C-alpha cells in the first residue's frame, strides 16, 4: 500500500471539495494511503513567485522539508501547487546558494530542505505507482467511448525538465475509463487563469479559444486536473452564455470524478451537482 503526504493547497478544499472527495474515494479503491500533511499552508501561486521569489521559495521549501521528516513523497491534486513545489524542489536541488538562504530561515523551525522526497501530481502517482492496467481491473461501469477533450494545464506539462510529466499519462488514464480522448488543435494552450487578476478580458478570450477548439473537434466533455483550469473552463462558460448568448455545453469534470463513476461510485460520491455546467449527462454514458 503506497503512502503519500497529501498536500491540498488552498483552492481545492475551498472551491472544489468534489475534486477532493472523488480523489479520496478513488485512492481508497486502489489502497493508496493519502495522509493530510500537518502544519502546511498555501503554495503562494505564480503570483507570489513574481513579486517575492525568496518568500515563495521558502514557503514551498518548508512544505517539502516537513514531508522529508516522514520520508513519503508529496502528492497534490492542484497544478498550481504541483508547479510551485516541483519548481522549488528542482531549483533548490541545483542552487546551493539559495538552498543555504532558505535553510537559514527554516532553521528556526528546526526544518531543513534536503531534496530527499519528490513532489508529485496525484494523477502521475496513479499512473506510475498503480498503473493503467491495475486501474482498469477495478472498473465496473466503463464509459461507452464518449469523446473527452483533456486540458492538461500548463504547470503540469511545462517546463518539461522540471515537471517530468508526459501528456500520455493522462491520455491513458482517461482511456482506461472507457472514454475516447479527443485530439484538438489548441491542446497545449493555456486556460488563462494566471492573468485573471491582471486582465480578465484576456483570460476569458483564452478560455473561449480553448472551448471553441474542443467543441469543433467533437468533444462532448472536458477532463481537467487543476482547480484553476477547472474554474476557467467551467465557470467562464456560464459567463459567455450570459454575456454573449454563446453556449458550448461542454461539462468539465475533474479526472477522479470520471474514474470514480466508472468504478461504480454514485453521482453524490463524486459531487457531480457542484459542477457549474450541468454534468449529469455523463451518467448516460456509463455502461455495465
Amino acid at each position, binding site marked *: 500500500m503506497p503512502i503519500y503526504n497529501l498536500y*491540498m493547497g*488552498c*483552492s481545492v*478544499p*475551498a*472551491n472544489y*471539495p*468534489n475534486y*477532493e*472527495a472523488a480523489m*479520496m474515494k478513488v485512492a481508497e479503491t486502489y489502497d493508496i494511503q493519502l495522509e*493530510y*500533511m*500537518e*502544519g*502546511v*499552508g*498555501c503554495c*503562494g*501561486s*505564480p*503570483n*507570489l*513567485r*513574481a*513579486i*517575492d*521569489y*525568496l*518568500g515563495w521559495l*521558502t*514557503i514551498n521549501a*518548508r512544505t517539502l522539508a516537513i514531508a522529508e521528516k516522514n520520508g513519503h513523497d508529496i502528492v497534490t491534486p492542484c497544478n498550481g501547487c504541483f508547479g510551485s513545489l516541483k519548481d522549488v524542489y528542482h*531549483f533548490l536541488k541545483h*542552487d546551493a546558494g*539559495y538552498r543555504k538562504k532558505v535553510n537559514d*530561515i527554516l532553521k528556526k*523551525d528546526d526544518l531543513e530542505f534536503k531534496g530527499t522526497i519528490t513532489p508529485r501530481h496525484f494523477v502521475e502517482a496513479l499512473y506510475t505507482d498503480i498503473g493503467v492496467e491495475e486501474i482498469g481491473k477495478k472498473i465496473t461501469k466503463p464509459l461507452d467511448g464518449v469523446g473527452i477533450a483533456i486540458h492538461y494545464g*500548463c*504547470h503540469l*506539462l*511545462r*517546463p*518539461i525538465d522540471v515537471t517530468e510529466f508526459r501528456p500520455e499519462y493522462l491520455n491513458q488514464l482517461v482511456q482506461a475509463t472507457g472514454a475516447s480522448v479527443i485530439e484538438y488543435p489548441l491542446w*497545449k*494552450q*493555456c486556460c*488563462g487563469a*494566471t*492573468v485573471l*487578476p*491582471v*486582465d480578465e478580458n*484576456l483570460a476569458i478570450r*483564452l478560455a473561449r*479559444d480553448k472551448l471553441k477548439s474542443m467543441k469543433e473537434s467533437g468533444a462532448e466533455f472536458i477532463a481537467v486536473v487543476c482547480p484553476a483550469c477547472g474554474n476557467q473552463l467551467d465557470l467562464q462558460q456560464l459567463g459567455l452564455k450570459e454575456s454573449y448568448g454563446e453556449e458550448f455545453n461542454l461539462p468539465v469534470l475533474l479526472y477522479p470524478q470520471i474514474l470514480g463513476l466508472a468504478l461504480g461510485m454514485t453521482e453524490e460520491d463524486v*459531487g457531480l451537482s*457542484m459542477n457549474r455546467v450541468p454534468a449529469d449527462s455523463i451518467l448516460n454514458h456509463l455502461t455495465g
Partner: protein
Amino acid sequence: MTEMEEQSGPPTTLIDPIDMSKLDTKFREQIKSMPNSEELSACFACSTCTAACPIANIWQYKPHQLIRMIILGMKEEVLSSSEIWLCLTCYQCQERCPQKVRVTDIFFDCKNLAAEEGKVPSNIIGLGKELLEKGQLYTVTADWEREDLGLEPAVPGLSVEAVKTILKETRTNKLVEGGE
C-alpha cells in the same frame, strides 16, 4: 499605379534608433545573476518564443524583443512594461527555445526586479496582501459542502501561520506596506 506624392523633405525614419546614452549596460548582468537566467546571452533572436506565445500578437514588445531589450540594457522599458505582468507563465516560449534560454523564468526575474522598485499591478499587490494577512489565497467558507461529501469541515492539517510569518520578513511585506 498611384502617383508619388511630392516630397518636401528627406524620407521619414523607418526605425527610431536606440538612444545609447539611456542604456543600462549592467542590466544584462543583473538579470544573469538571478535564478535560471544563465543562458540569456545565448539568444540569437530567432523569435521562436514569439511564434510559440499565444498572446504575443497583442503585445507591443514581443517575447524575443524583450529578451533583446534585456541584453541591450533597456532596463526602464522592460521593467515598466505591461507585458511582463501579462505573461501567462504557460512556458510555451521556454519549451521551444532552441538555445535553452529560460524565457518564462527570465520574465519572472524581471517581475521580481520590477517589484523591488515597487512597480507591481495593484491586483497582484492585493494577492500579496491576502497571503500576508490570511496565509492563503482561498479560505473554506462553505464547510457544509465538505461535510456533505464526507470530508472534514476544516482542512485537516492546515496551518496559515507559517506562511504569514515567512512573508512578513520578505519582500511581500514591504510591497503591501508600500501600497497602503
